[in-house]
């Protein structure tokens, strides 16, 4: 149903979105890793400090099938609906598009009648996705100026190429493959764009066959996982440039372009370097019409007693940081970095993007450290900071601690006990763990977090 005025959660610019009221609910993908025939679920978490349910799961909708592996998800509509060339501001931010990375099934979940009791209103089966797009393993979801975009890791047979497909914003029908000319691109993972420059950036992980049985050391040591960025023309749907980080940089994953549409730069997290097991953050930017990429942050591996390491890492006698997720505040000032290996969570001031300054660091979990939360200071935690989300005003940061079931098992073979925590970020830098917010997911594992009304990775903007 069309609204009479624009959806109140749409903001023309990221600066205006920072004035948004604090979020009261979060939606969290919850994975059932027990292989007991029970399905995954989407959870609703109470974020209102004034509420009696603060920091607790207050709603849950189970998926109709088992084995989806819910992973990333996103909204049907966002501030990009205000873009001037295809404006349609009177649609509602209401539905969550929730794909299963294993099953290739896509769930459309309505949060409107009761935001605490979301309901599944449509399910797109993997056969439909395959027939319409030639893709499988849907991953990132972004609402675009004129449709819903999604990335996919590969083809239905589990090989490449992976890419992007588009869904209709009203009917949620899968429209088809997005690329008209993919150039040399084969591997896929994340994607986002610079709307002001009509430019899409995509990153690389591996095909479904390369990742769904765990990280494959043979492929890894050959430098076979993704290590490139691809630059595309958004309206023309064509590949324009490839940016190679070098094969020793393995798994170029999360992309966080500047939110301000006039800033042609963004940040990329790389999981591991084959040279020294370090992880890194890279800056891509446009100069004189050409895009380039540079390493701006390197986080070294930490030496460790092999007895404390999982079999995969024992030979290295070190814990790799493993940057698996990053997030950028709406003012493009603070970059948050999750280290799934060491359990460190780092805040950088990236106001000067070429010269980041470390402004905060906390530890929770970690392969060796197993750092505890202040609410339960005697309980060692496993898993580590992973999927991170930042509130629109930049004052609150939430994250969960699981990565992807087959990979969780390699880094935390004892089985991840999953939790979600909240940090309070200080206006001039620095952050503190909220001692009252510690959510235990019980039998399930929390993955991506989406905040009610939008967050720092849900919306894109056409005005600065």
């Amino acid at each position: 149903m069309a609204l009479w005025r624009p959806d109140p959660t749409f903001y023309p610019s990221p600066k205006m979105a920072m004035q948004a009221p604090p979020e009261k609910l979060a939606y969290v993908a919850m994975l059932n890793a027990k292989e007991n025939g029970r399905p995954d679920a989407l959870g609703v978490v109470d974020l209102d400090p004034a509420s009696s349910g603060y920091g607790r799961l207050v709603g849950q909708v189970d998926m109709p099938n088992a084995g989806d592996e819910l992973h990333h998800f996103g909204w049907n509509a966002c501030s990009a609906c205000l873009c001037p060339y295809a404006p349609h501001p009177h649609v509602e931010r209401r539905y969550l598009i929730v794909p299963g990375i294993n099953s290739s099934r896509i769930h459309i979940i309505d949060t409107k009648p009761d935001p605490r009791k979301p309901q599944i209103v449509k399910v797109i089966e993997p056969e439909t996705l395959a027939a319409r797009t030639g893709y499988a393993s849907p991953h990132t979801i972004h609402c675009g100026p004129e449709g819903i975009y999604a990335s996919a890791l590969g083809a239905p047979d589990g090989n490449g190429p992976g890419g992007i497909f588009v869904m209709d914003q009203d009917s949620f029908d899968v429209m088809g493959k997005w690329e008209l000319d993919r150039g040399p691109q084969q591997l896929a993972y994340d994607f986002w764009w610079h709307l002001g420059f009509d430019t899409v950036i995509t990153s690389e992980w591996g095909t479904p066959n390369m990742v769904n049985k765990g990280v494959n050391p043979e492929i890894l040591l050959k430098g076979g996982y993704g290590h490139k960025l691809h630059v595309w023309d958004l309206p023309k749907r064509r590949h324009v440039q490839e940016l190679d980080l070098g094969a020793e940089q393995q798994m170029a994953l999360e992309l966080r372009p500047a939110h301000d549409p006039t800033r042609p730069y963004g940040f990329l997290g790389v999981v591991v370097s084959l040279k020294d097991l370090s992880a890194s953050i890279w800056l891509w930017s446009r100069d004189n019409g050409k895009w380039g990429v540079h390493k701006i942050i390197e986080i070294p591996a930490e030496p460790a007693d092999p007895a404390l390491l999982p079999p995969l890492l024992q030979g290295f006698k070190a814990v790799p940081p493993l940057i698996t997720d990053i997030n950028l505040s709406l003012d493009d000032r603070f970059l948050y970095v999750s280290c799934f290996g060491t359990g460190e969570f780092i805040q950088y001031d990236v106001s000067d993007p070429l010269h980041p300054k470390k402004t905060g660091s906390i530890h929770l979990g970690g392969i060796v450290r197993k750092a505890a939360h202040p609410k339960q200071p005697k309980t060692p935690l496993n898993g580590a900071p992973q999927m991170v989300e930042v509130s629109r005003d930049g004052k609150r940061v939430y994250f969960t601690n699981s990565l992807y079931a087959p990979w969780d098992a390699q880094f935390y073979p004892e089985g991840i006990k999953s939790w979600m925590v909240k940090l309070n970020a200080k206006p001039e830098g620095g952050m503190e763990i909220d001692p009252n917010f510690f959510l235990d997911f019980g039998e399930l594992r929390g993955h991506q977090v989406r905040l009610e009304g939008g967050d720092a990775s849900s919306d894109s903007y056409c005005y600065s």
Partner: protein
Amino acid sequence: MSGASDWGWPALFFLGAYHGLNPGMGWLFAVALGMQEKSSRAVVRSLAPIALGHAAAIGVVLALASAMRIVLPLQTLKYAIAAGLVALGVYRLIRHRHFKWVGMQVGFVDLTLWSFLMASAHGAGLMVLPVVMGMPAGGGHAHHTAGMTDPLTGAEATLVHSLGYLILTALIALIVYQKVGLAMLRKAWLNLDQVWAVALIVTGLLALAI
């Protein structure tokens, strides 16, 4: 001059202004381009192609109707136009398609084409037709001949309409860019698509009455 011309020209002008008011029809794009380049000159520069595209959309419809008038009886043409307007209005009430013509990196030609397609998709030209039909031909002497059979009247009508459109588009774009800012969009951007759809239907019905 007959009675019809008394309201015909102002009606054309104000219809143009009404089209200019719609954020989806041009001024908002002009503001966005100004913000992207951080310059009010970019706002001004975008006005010419936006107005040109809009004028072309109006002119094409008027010229087509003129041509059809030569082969079709006036009464038949009236019904056809009325049916077209009502059908487009109903379609726009129930279906909200948003096509993507271009992105934010647009040159003169892209912007002209975008404005032409945007105005056409909204039925801007069709909406103007009944007004022109109700106007007398250039000299005003042949009372039974509708104005649209006269190419000169068609051109003048396009010009007057586009002037109303351009003035409002330029005014809003510059005031919003330099003074007001876009925050007001969140409250003031009424769903003109719905109003527009109803306007198309009403104009269609009015066309029958002329």
